[in-house]
């Protein structure tokens, strides 16, 4: 961890702790005000609780040009990204992607190449639909490890996080409290529910919250689509291709639309926002990641639309290549934030019940 980032966040947190005007905005301040002194772990926890809604920045009487020069959203964003890089496993991989959109693009090209190669080299053993291009077994051979290895990696990272922030044994109520807050994106709504300050200085709007919800629920529906299909395949012996009115297709198509629109909206919003209230060095990596995620959704929709044309094999390779890259980069890109946020909210629920 970079001590100067933590030190700067600590300097600012100590000023906030003497003021407390922002107490009503989000989860960060009640947690901050519960301490008198801040360990590195405390700062890391605050950083991961912060959703960068920026309400505190625009309300702050001590932002530049004031000599106290507070910019808590930025200070915490920098600590947050640094914490993800430090906890990532294996370590050296992590430092490329958060700050380099180009590295994500390169990984995407490699993902495409792997799939084109797999289709050409392995091909099909005579299945239907997509399996006529790449066999089901080949898909499983590629995607089972591509899904499980990143999860394993995230697990290691979260263990490191949990140790540093002083996490306690988790109770079910901690988890439900955290999921409730995340499910409603309460920390992007401010205490009054008017939303956050993002695309138009100090104007409160639900824009970012709703767009984030579109991305999150869109992604979860796409994920549900694949999960349902897996169950149908293995448990019920119902094999793809599925019709439009099947669960995998209903989840997949609506999720894909939400995800694509959400990601486009997020990039547009981010362009309007003040980069200096986030982590400026993560700008490229964040935009690269959002575009990758949006592309996963979009290429899936195109594949569905043109699945019965001669373009299908190429589209399949492109979509699966994007999915492969997305999965493999999960621990090392902004995607990791979802896991850390949940961990931070679970830890915060523990703090609230006094442990």
């Amino acid at each position, binding site marked *: 961890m970079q001590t100067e980032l933590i030190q700067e966040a600590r300097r600012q947190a100590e000023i906030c702790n*003497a003021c407390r*005007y922002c107490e*009503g905005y989000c989860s960060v301040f009640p947690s901050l005000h519960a301490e008198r002194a801040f360990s590195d772990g405390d700062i890391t926890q605050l950083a991961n609780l912060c959703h960068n809604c920026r309400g505190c920045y*625009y*309300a702050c*009487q001590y*932002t*530049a040009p004031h000599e*106290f020069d507070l910019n808590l959203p930025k200070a915490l964003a920098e600590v947050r990204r640094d914490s993800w890089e430090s906890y990532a496993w294996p370590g050296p991989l992590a430092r490329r992607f958060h700050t380099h959109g180009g590295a994500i693009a390169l990984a995407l090209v490699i993902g495409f190449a792997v799939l084109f190669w797999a289709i050409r080299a392995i091909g099909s053993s005579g299945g239907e639909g997509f399996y006529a291009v790449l066999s089901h077994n080949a898909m499983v051979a590629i995607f089972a490890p591509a899904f499980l290895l990143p999860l394993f990696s995230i697990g290691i990272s979260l263990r490191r996080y949990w140790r540093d922030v002083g996490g306690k044994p988790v109770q079910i109520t901690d988890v439900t409290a955290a999921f409730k807050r995340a499910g409603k994106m309460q920390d992007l709504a401010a*205490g009054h529910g008017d939303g956050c300050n993002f695309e138009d200085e100090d104007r409160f709007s639900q824009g970012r919250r709703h767009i984030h919800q579109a991305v999150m629920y869109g992604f979860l529906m796409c994920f549900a689509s694949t999960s349902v299909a897996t169950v149908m395949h293995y448990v019920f012996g119902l094999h793809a291709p599925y019709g439009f009115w099947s669960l995998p297709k209903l989840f997949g198509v609506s999720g894909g639309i939400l995800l694509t629109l959400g990601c486009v909206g997020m990039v547009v919003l981010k362009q309007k926002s003040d980069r200096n209230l986030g982590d400026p060095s993560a700008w490229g990596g964040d935009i690269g990641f959002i575009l990758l995620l949006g592309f996963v959704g979009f290429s899936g929709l195109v594949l569905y639309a043109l699945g019965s044309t001669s373009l299908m094999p190429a589209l399949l390779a492109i979509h699966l290549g994007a999915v492969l890259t997305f999965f493999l980069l999960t621990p090392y890109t902004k995607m990791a934030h979802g896991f850390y946020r949940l961990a931070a909210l679970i830890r915060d629920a523990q703090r609230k019940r006094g442990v």
Partner: protein
Amino acid sequence: MATQTEAYDIAVIGGGNAALCAAMTAAETGARVLILETAPKPYRGGNSRHTRNFRCMHKAPLGPLIEDYSEEEYLSDLLKVTGGKTDEHLARLAIRTSEECLPWMEEHGVRFQPSLSGTLSLARTNAFFMGGGKSLVNAYYRTAARLGVDVLYEAAVTHLELNGDRVEWLDYTYEGQSHRIKPKAVIVASGGFQADTDWLTRAWGEPAKNFLIRGTPYNRGVVLADLLNQGVDSVGDPTQCHAVAIDGRAPKFDGGIVTRLDCVPFSIVVNKDADRFYDEGEDVWPKRYAIWGRLVAAQPDQVGYVIIDSKSLNLFMPSVFPPLKADTVAELAGMMGLPADRLCKTVSEFNEACGDTSDFHPTELDGVATNGLTPPKTNWARPITEPPFYGYSLRTGVTFTYLGLKVDDTAQCSTANGKIKNLWAAGETMAGSILGQGYLAGFGMTIGTVFGRIAGREAAAYAN
């Protein structure tokens, strides 16, 4: 000199809470309103930036406020702090109107929250702004813009030309040029003069040069002086200001809330000769922090030094600057530039005068007092014995000045010859009418909101 081509009905001088309430109220009647704010945009809002709540009368639970807070109770709270230096008619008007202001504030974009941690005693009387005063100011500027109010930042009003019973024109500088406008009506809401150190020094005396100003550096009293020079009626003691004791390391201006120090009741406080000079345990700190501004101002070099030991460190809200820390009292004296032998003597005399401390209770008047010490410490008197020892410096922090423009219950200004037909005043610049002495938390925002709205309404009625 450039003359503004755009014709405004009303010019509002100032850009804080009172100015914004006046501007919005006037604009809602259809008047064309211009706000002339002398601060740059990041510092707009005057002292309202540093506020956090609104004291509000209410007959039943209202917004974030619990139970009720009657006109009589509110007034009696006010009379306690002002010692009777209050225009009761105007005070009752402010108090009575505050109740309808709270929903009005919400309609104009202000959001409230339950009272902040450490301020539970105010949950019934004071409505806290979510995000504090700057968020209120931001919301009001948004609403004002939507209502068509124009705002000029870094627009410094230099002169109002008073001719008999009306203001003829108004001069201001903006972007290096002088401008003259002739609005139909003018509302002055540009605060007191506390940021003008020369004026403060003339009024208070030499010690004022060492005072810190808790709020905006832009309340320099230019318009106030201009109007008083032209014979506009004044109110309030011209030599006095409201001052509290704050951390001596605070910046000269704009230190705001974070520079307050709540540790005095658990400490001994000495001057630069290392002598104690007042009972640190006289009352709970919120009731005493104002008199300590004056006590410190009366000491040599206008500075005090607070000494506590480790057992008291966590009894008060953390402040923005960490305390000095030493293993011995003598070492702490060295760090603070105090005579070490003298400080050790003062501490040991104090320690010897402490008695039974078993009744010590940090949040109540516990009667744990010294015996035979002058001055005594009458509550929370525990010996300072457990290292490490901690020290803070204290200086006088000025909140606002009392001298202002005298107004009637329509916020209208006057001269010895009667009312000025088109001049109104609101906020700190006329607060001396009601707050002749002392301060009541959240009452400045009440005066600003109530009289800002009245001034806006009256000026618009005149102009339209």
